[in-house]
Structure formats: structure tokens, C-alpha cells
């Protein structure tokens, strides 16, 4: 289990950074640790190696999702160091929490035992509660942490209760044993099992921020420091979806008739609530929070798809969404710190102030709204195709309606950047490393949009 070990050691080494005064190099250390873990991770490709008495297995699914989380976390750490590094006196601790939460994410996407699912969710969530409250003197940040903690703990309760009920029904925590039981007996009038599935569903829908369990998202996303919000919206969401899809495709696929209706309804209301509420947001950060709710709605389509398409579909979508969303949040952070507002008017005349940043804004917004030749389009295409293959044509039509609703708000910053002229002469600064990384994210968006075959099927 080299990946988790490498990550944990990195986290612990970071913690000692303040004591043995090497806090300056902790960002580097974290990146190296993530890189090492990434190398270990990729060595498991095509091996499906089990660990811890078959409580985890590094199959291709786990490797792919793990790699996405680690790469995004590495990008985030670089930016965190740039933006917060100098003023943040708790840099080593923050970095170690980020690295620990990635370890949680790895567990969440590779578990084959419900206990490990619970552990993974807890490792990730507890780190997130702390991260949300990083700005200790900021009221919003405190509110975010508090809300996230209370609601998160509540939802984890549901998850745990569901696990217990399923254990009661099937006498096992092991996914393959549960799958065998479900396959053999079905779920007809096995209310214990059905209640368990429903409880787990509630817990996980909360984690992915699907309506009607989404109420924490806007406040937490807005209150937390922007760079941390980027982490929640990308790594947090992707890991949660990794866990979600893994459980339902491995275990509960035979009784999909029992829960697919729930997913369908949740998906529809999630898309509509996310998109329509996002239309009215003034703060772009809050708008992106609602848009991330809407994206959860699209991603739920994967759960309704046939098995051979769903996994690859959700992986591709996660990558596309992760890259663009990360870029978007980072841009908002830059604009917010330099113009003092996170509303659309901060972007006014961006093409004069900073061409690179305007271009990256355009690319990531186009990708989030799913315009062809960006990764976002192919992600949507993938999910739509697999959902139609699953027989949900009408649902896809509703998703399509949502796609063009979303254009209206995704284009706001683009319109501000390109079509309006600024009346102030302020220049938006962008350091070279930041520019290079952001441009790399944009290039990745376009390359994956043109050659989506680069992401292997899992």
C-alpha cells in the first residue's frame, strides 16, 4: 500500500516542519511526496492488487481516480504556497492536512470494504472541516467550517447507519460478499437492505453536494479561502464521486431498479437548482459553487449508465471538470486579491489588463459550459451517450436544457473580460509560475477536447 504510506509519511514530515524549522521547504516536500505517491500509484496500473486482507484493491479505477486527485492536489499546493505562503504561519500544518486528505481520497476510490469507505470519507472530511476554517479571524470562514462540520457529521451518521443496516442484511462489509448476496437474493421485500442503500445514498449525495442535500455548499464554498474552495470543488467532489460510483456499480448494480429512480429525480433537481440559482449570483465564487452543484447533477448520469461506459465517463468528466474548475477558482482568487471584489465586474476589461488571464478565463469557462474542442464538451458527450445507452433519453434532454442555461452565467466573466472596457488603469499581475501552470491547465483542457482518447478506458 505504498501510495497511502508515501502520502502519510509526507504528511507527518510536514508536521515536523515547524518544530525542526524547515517550514520553507515543506511545499517542495509535499510536491515530492505527491510525486512519489503518483509513481507508486501508476505502478499498480493493470495489476488489481489487493491490500489489507482485501479491504482495498488498486484496480485501474482506483489508480485513475487516485492519479487525478494527486495531480490536482499538487497543482493546488503550488498555488497555495504562492498565494498564502508568506503570510501563513501554519503553512506546514495546512500542507500536511491537504496531503492527509489526499490519502483519504485514495482510500475512498480504492476500497472494497464498507469500513474502508467510512474511513476514507472521514479522513477526507475531517481535513476539509479544518481547511474550511483556515482564515480564523474571518467570520465567513468560521461559518463555513462550522456549517460544514455540523452538516458533514450529520451526513456521515447517515452513511454509517446505512453501512450498519447493510451489514445486518448481508452479514458482511465486503463489497464482493454484498454484491454476491444482492445478486442471489435481490432486494424484493428485503427492507433492511433497501433502507441501508437509501441511507448510504443520502450520506454520499451529501458529500457530492447533490440537491436536496446541497445547502451547505454555497456557504462553505464562499466562506472558505478561495484556494481551499478549489480543493473542495475538485478533489473533494471527484473523490466522493469515485467512492459513490464504485459502491453502486460494484455492489448495487443488480438492484438498480430500486434506486435508479431516486438518482434520476435527484439528478434532475440538482441540475435545475444548481443552474438556475447560479444565474442569479453576483459573487462569482458563489456562482461557481452552484455550478459545481449542477455538475454533480450531470455526473449522477454516470450511475444510470451501463457499467462498461459509466466508469470511463465519470472519470473523463471528473478530469475535465477538475481541470477547468481548478483554473476558474484560481483565477477568481487572483482577481479577488487584486481588485478586491469577487463579482463579475472584477473581470471588466481583463483583456487589456492581462491577456493571458483573460484567455485562460475564456478557455475554462468554455470548458465548464461544454463547448466543443474543450475537455468539458467531451465529458458531457461521454455522460450523455452513456445515459442514452442506459435508456434515459428524456433525462439527457433535461441535461441539455441545463447545459444551455449554464452558458448564460459561465459567459459572464468572458463577456466582462473581452467585450467591456475597463475605466481604471490597474494591471493584474500574474507571476511566471502561476501563468505557466494556468496555461498548462488550459492546454490540457484543449488537448483533451481534441484528443479525448488520451484518457484510457477503465
Amino acid at each position, binding site marked *: 500500500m505504498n501510495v497511502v504510506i508515501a502520502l502519510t509519511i509526507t504528511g507527518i514530515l510536514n508536521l515536523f516542519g515547524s518544530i525542526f524549522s524547515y517550514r520553507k521547504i515543506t511545499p517542495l516536500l509535499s510536491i515530492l511526496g505527491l510525486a512519489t505517491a503518483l509513481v507508486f500509484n501508476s505502478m499498480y496500473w493493470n495489476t488489481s492488487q489487493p491490500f489489507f486482507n482485501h479491504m482495498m484493491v488498486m484496480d485501474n479505477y482506483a489508480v485513475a481516480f487516485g492519479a487525478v486527485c494527486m495531480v490536482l492536489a499538487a497543482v493546488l499546493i503550488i498555488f497555495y504556497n504562492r498565494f498564502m505562503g508568506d503570510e501563513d504561519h501554519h503553512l506546514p500544518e495546512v500542507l500536511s492536512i491537504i496531503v492527509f486528505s489526499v490519502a483519504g481520497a485514495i482510500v475512498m476510490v480504492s476500497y472494497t470494504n464498507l469500513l474502508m469507505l467510512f474511513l476514507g470519507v472521514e479522513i477526507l472530511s475531517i481535513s476539509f472541516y479544518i481547511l474550511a476554517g483556515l482564515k480564523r479571524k474571518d467570520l465567513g470562514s468560521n461559518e463555513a467550517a462550522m456549517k460544514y462540520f455540523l452538516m458533514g457529521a450529520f451526513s456521515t451518521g447517515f452513511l454509517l447507519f446505512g453501512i450498519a443496516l447493510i451489514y445486518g442484511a448481508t452479514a458482511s462489509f465486503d463489497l464482493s460478499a454484498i454484491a454476491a448476496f444482492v445478486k442471489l437474493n435481490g432486494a424484493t421485500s428485503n427492507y433492511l437492505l433497501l433502507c441501508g442503500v437509501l441511507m448510504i445514498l443520502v450520506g454520499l449525495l451529501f458529500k457530492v453536494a447533490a440537491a436536496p442535500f446541497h445547502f451547505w455548499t454555497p456557504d462553505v464554498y464562499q466562506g472558505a479561502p478561495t484556494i481551499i474552495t478549489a480543493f473542495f470543488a475538485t478533489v473533494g467532489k471527484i473523490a466522493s464521486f469515485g467512492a459513490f460510483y464504485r459502491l453502486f456499480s460494484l455492489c448495487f448494480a443488480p438492484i438498480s431498479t430500486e434506486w435508479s429512480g431516486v438518482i434520476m429525480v435527484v439528478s434532475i433537481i440538482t441540475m435545475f437548482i444548481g443552474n438556475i440559482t447560479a444565474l442569479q449570483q453576483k459573487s462569482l465564487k458563489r456562482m461557481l459553487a452552484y455550478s459545481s452543484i449542477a455538475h454533480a447533477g450531470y455526473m449522477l448520469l454516470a450511475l444510470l449508465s451501463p457499467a462498461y461506459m459509466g466508469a*470511463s465517463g465519470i472519470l473523463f468528466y471528473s478530469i475535465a471538470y477538475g481541470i477547468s474548475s481548478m483554473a476558474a477558482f484560481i483565477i477568481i482568487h487572483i482577481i479577488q486579491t487584486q481588485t478586491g471584489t469577487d463579482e463579475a465586474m472584477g473581470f471588466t476589461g481583463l483583456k487589456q489588463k492581462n491577456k493571458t488571464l483573460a484567455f485562460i478565463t475564456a478557455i475554462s469557462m*468554455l470548458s465548464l459550459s461544454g*463547448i*466543443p*474542442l474543450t475537455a468539458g*464538451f467531451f465529458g458531457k*458527450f461521454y455522460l*450523455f*451517450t452513456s445515459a*442514452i*445507452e442506459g435508456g434515459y*433519453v428524456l433525462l*439527457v*434532454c433535461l441535461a*441539455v*436544457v441545463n*447545459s*444551455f442555461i449554464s*452558458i*448564460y452565467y459561465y*459567459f459572464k466573466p468572458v*463577456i466582462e473580460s*473581452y*467585450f*467591456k472596457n475597463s475605466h481604471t488603469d490597474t494591471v493584474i499581475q500574474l507571476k511566471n509560475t502561476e501563468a505557466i501552470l494556468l496555461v498548462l491547465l488550459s492546454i490540457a483542457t484543449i488537448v483533451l477536447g481534441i*484528443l*479525448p*482518447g488520451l484518457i484510457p*478506458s477503465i
Partner: protein
Amino acid sequence: MHTLLLLIIPVVFMVVVLFLKGKTAGYAALTSSILSLVVSIIVAIHLHFNGYFDEFNRTWISSFGINFHVGIDGISLILVLLTTFLTPFIIVTSLQKENENSSVFYALILLMQAGMLGAFTAMDSFLFYVSYEVALIPIYFICGLWGGENRIAVTLKFFIYTLAGSLFMLVSIIYLYLQTPGNHTFEISEFYKLNLSSTQQTWVFWGFFLAFAVKIPIFPFHSWQPSTYTTAPTAGTMLLAGIMLKMGLYGLIRFVLPIAPDAVAHWNTLTEILCVCGIIYGSVIAMRQNDLKTLIAFSSLAHVGLIAAGIFSMNVQGIQGAMIQMFNHGVNAVALFFLIDLLERRSGTRLMDKFGGIASVNKKIAVVFAIVMLGSVGLPLTNGFVGEFLLLMGVYQWNIYAALFAGLTIILGAVYMLRLYRNVFFGEVSDAGRSITPLSMMETIMSYKLVVLIIVLGIFPNLLLNLSAPAVTKLLNLIANHSNMTATL
């Protein structure tokens, strides 16, 4: 291979243009568009005399059975020629004006050309969809960056409208893809072989119809069009009216007729009525316009309504008429917008009541405008006549009453165009009229070229009709077989 070259030239030059500045960028773009023109003429000669079907096919995304498959048959050829003929004109028009950021402007025009050529040559429906959308992004930025007042709201409306329609087309395409046997494929020719039930055809039909009806636009999906045409910079309007809306008409011929013929036969009473409504509606509104650009925008609505009506009549006259009229409408629309731009640049206005008496100030422009106008009205021996005649014949064969109302386009067209001409060119010389200075060298050449094109195509329509005839016959046979097949099932 020529087809691939057609797509690569604009993309490569687009990158080059981005690194150039000012007029140089414009001339580089012009070079690119002329190169494309040459290549497309070579393709036309090959296809016409040797019957050589030029295509290029490579696997693009293997897990989805998506191929980068482009090719040019008779139907594509007309539209490819239209695109390559008009792009140099559009670029030259823009060269007359100083645009800020001109390198970006020309790069966007070239990207749009690539997208439109991609849509017209795609033999793979996924590629078609992607190209269809790719053409939308540059025009959005062209209109948004260089457009007139209220451009932000207008262009956003245009963008959302068009994208909304085409996303339903995407659903239809995916649905068809999943109906193909074995390892699914997006190949259009495979779609032709499908045996869809009439319910399936109906859904697929409406999916495609929404996309194309917005793009064409067919009444009542047109509400984006007049404002966008008016607000867009001249080059943008030319691209939109001259070429881009033909993607919708082309899509009807390429996808809707052969894939869902029964649904078309079942629903075309409704669609024909919509088209005829568009014809009358567009013409009547055009009669009351004061802004020349808006007037032409509404007249365009009427003209494309007739083309769509011809396509939905599903006979050889209707479709051949649509093919030739697509080309001619493109030429006429670009010519009209070119002349209006010319007047606007000299006088600073495009309001009809500000002009007057230009005929006595500048005879050359009056004559050129007269010929273009007559072409647009559809006078015999101009290019507009043949197309409208064939289209009306097609509609007549489908239903005599539809033809009766569709035929109003000729009368109403004469009314609003002659009104325009009278107000702008005759009467007392106004201040704006007096400001019309003689044409520059470049403008003269351009005008003469357009005039020659209008007259030559009016006298020898077979130049175009012969190019598309074999492909259209093939398409109609396909539809006939298809209908028989479903009838026997």
C-alpha cells in the same frame, strides 16, 4: 486529400495570422482564403469531370467509433465553393476598414471558415457536430468584439439560441449512433442504412429540426436573427447570412431528409406552413424597415424560408433549387451587405430616409446596386431567378396552395427592394447622398466581380446545377428506397 488540405489551410494560417500585425495579418488571411479557393476549384474540376470523390478517413476516437472522415460530394461541393468564394470577399471588405486587434479578427474569420468547411465536408456526424459548434465560437467573438450597440445582449442571445438548438441535435446524433449495429459508429452513411420506426424518426426529426430551424432560421425560431445581423460588424453579417445559415439548410439535406424521410413526409405540412409564414412575415416586416441592414436581414429570412420550403417538398426540383439558391443567396446577401457597408462607410449612416439621390451623384454604385438588387429580387437572367423558379416548382408539386403563398416572395421582394432603391438612389440629393464618393480601385473590382457572378450564374445556371445533380439524384433514390423499405416492414 484535397479536402483535408481545405481544412488545414485556414487553421495553419490562423496561427500565422495571430503573430502578424495590422494589414499584414489581413493580407495573410487573404492569401489563405485564395489558396482555399484554388483547392476547392481543383476539387470541383476533379469531381465534375472525373467523378472523383475526394475523401480522407482516419480514426479519431477509437473507443467511440468516431472517425475524422471528410469528403466532398456534389452537395458538399456547392457549399464548399460558396465558402471559399465568399471568404476572400469578406476579408477584402474588412481590409477597407481599420479594425483594432485586426490579427485576432482575421484569425477568427479563418477559424470560422475552417469550422464551416468542416461542417460541409464532414462524413462523420460527430465531426459535423463539432465543426457546427466550432464555427459558432469565432462569430460570437467577432460580433461581441466588433459589433455595434447592444452587442453583448444580442450576441449572447444568438449564442444561447443556436447552442440550445444544436444540443438537441447532439441528442439525436447520439441516439442514432446507439442504433447502429455492432460496434457503434457515427458514420453518416451508416445512419442512412438504419431502419427506424416512425416514432423514432419523429423524435430524431425534431431533434435535428430544432438545431437547423434556429440556424436557418425558420419562423418562429428567427428572433435572434434580425438583431444579430444588424449589430454584427459587416464581415460578421456576411459570414452569418452568406455562409453560416447554409449549415442549417445543408444539415436538412444531409441528415433530416435521408435519415427520417417518413417523419419529414408526415410533418412537412407543418414545416412548410412555418416556412411560408417566414416568407410572408419576413417580407412584410422588411417593407417597413428604415435601417438598410435590418431590411436585408428580414429579406434574408424570407429567402431562406423559401429554400427550406423547397427542401421539405422532397422532390428533385425543390432540392436542386435549394442547392443553387443556397449559393446564389450567399452571393446576393454578401453583395448587398458589401454595398450597404460601402454606403455606410462614406455617409456614416444606414438609415434609408437619410439617403436620397445617389444615382445622380455616383452612377457606378447605382448601377451595381441595381444589378445586385435585381438578382436578389429574382429577375430572369440574374442568378436569383433560377433558384426561386426551381424552388417554387418544387413546392408547387408538393402543394399548389403552398406554392401560391410562397410565390408572394417574388412580389413582396420586389416591393421592398424597389422601395429601398427608390428611397436611397432616386429623389432629391440629401447630405448623406452627396457624401457618396467614387469607388476605390479595390471596391470597383469587387463590385464587378459580384455583378459578373450574378449575371453569369443567371444565364448559365447549369454550371452549378450539373455539379450537384448526380448527388441529389442519389440522395432522392436513397430516400425513395428508404421509404419503400419502411413501408414494407
